[in-house]
């Protein structure tokens, strides 16, 4: 049964090509949260402990999502939902995608 928000939750974080080298070539990172609320923020906290060079490219040092980085849970851009507080179900998939920006 899928649990929402608490208990053991496994999440897959899919990385864009630009961040894979910093993740030792991995396209996706499996994150397991044992307790407490499961949100995008807590997944990124766990990522910070394992792959700090990846996490700090997604969030700045105040904890905010970088302006031109989008994080999707399923098909939902978290900016259109609860932001980094977006709750996660066991088995959720997070995609980190650079925004189409720049010149």
């Amino acid at each position: 049964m899928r649990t929402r928000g608490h208990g053991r939750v496994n999440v897959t974080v899919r990385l864009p090509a630009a961040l894979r080298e910093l993740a030792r070539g991995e396209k996706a990172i499996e994150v397991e949260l044992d307790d407490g609320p499961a949100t995008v923020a807590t997944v990124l906290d766990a990522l910070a402990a394992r792959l700090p060079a990846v996490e700090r490219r997604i969030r700045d040092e105040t904890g905010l999502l970088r302006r031109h980085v989008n994080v999707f849970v399923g098909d939902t851009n978290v900016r259109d939902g609860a932001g980094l507080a977006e709750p996660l179900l066991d088995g959720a998939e997070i995609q980190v995608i650079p925004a189409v920006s720049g010149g």
Partner: protein
Amino acid sequence: MLLMIGTRKGLWLARSDDDRTTWQFDGPHFLMQEIPAAAIDPRGGRTRLLVGARSEHWGPSVFHSDDLGASWHEPEGGAVRFPPEADAAVAAIWQLRPDAAERPGVVWAGTEPSALWRSDDGGEKFSLVEGLWEHPHRKSWEPGGGGQAIHTVLPHPNDDARVLVAMSTGGVYTTADGGRSWDPSNQGIKAYFLPDPWPEYGQCVHKVARDPSDPERLFAQNHHGVYRSDDGGSTWSSIADGLPSDFGFAMVAHPARGATAWVAPLVADGERIPPDGALKVWRTDDAGDSWASVSAGLPESGFYASVLRDAFTVDDVADSAGLYLGSRDGSVYVSADEGGNWAEIARHLPDVLCVRAATVA
């Protein structure tokens, strides 16, 4: 000679083995990252390259290379990051400045937002200089056109307790106690854009350079105004007479000879192109009492690109200093004879944000 060219979309390295006549290019490094700051640090028995890079997506960092750019590294935990209690995030690295030869591990960084950082491990990991960050003036420093940043860091060559910084806007600040306390140091610099044009602070100083023969003598290019200080920045007086314009961004001092400096004027704040469509460099040999154009070989017409504050630099050849100038149209010009003759060595690069050059083995 190694030349680092930081652009809006990456870093190029150029190398000359024939007294700065022909150049071999290598790049881009950090493709699609803006490189507003670079440094070549020959201290400590090795040549270390430093870059401040900023990805529009992934944020800023400082990278170092001890193999002349073959590989680049940053610390696992990041190079320049505010502590949590600061509640701020580094937006960009605007300046990287190795300290004096006698202090080989010390490297300074200036960032946006305006903060000064010190590294004691050769530019790998930087710590916030809290004395300046906590300055009561900070809340009234306003962003200039490019952002609110410290773009100039000048450690005193003979006194490790003294450092000068400059920011846009805010102006010049100095410390005499190793960074614990800071005082504005702008007396005589005009801020025409404020109701009181002679404030204690708030000036838009664009670049400051230190005279190599007298560390108390400083040259400054201001947002309108060119100045000299003979007392370590306590007071400033205009040296703009003789220049075609007092607007510009860069100020370059000779690496060894006193009283010698160069500027690259633009018309005005509201007209940021070279006068008469001609790219010209102006030189003084008497600490700003007089100026002469030293522009043979630079474009004489149809040139409308500006030269940014760190896109003009000098190398370390004491008896015939090389000058390096990059522009926002991606051109790079070199003079191996202190401005006597110039040659274009690159064109069609992305906007040049910074150049740095030094003799390497």
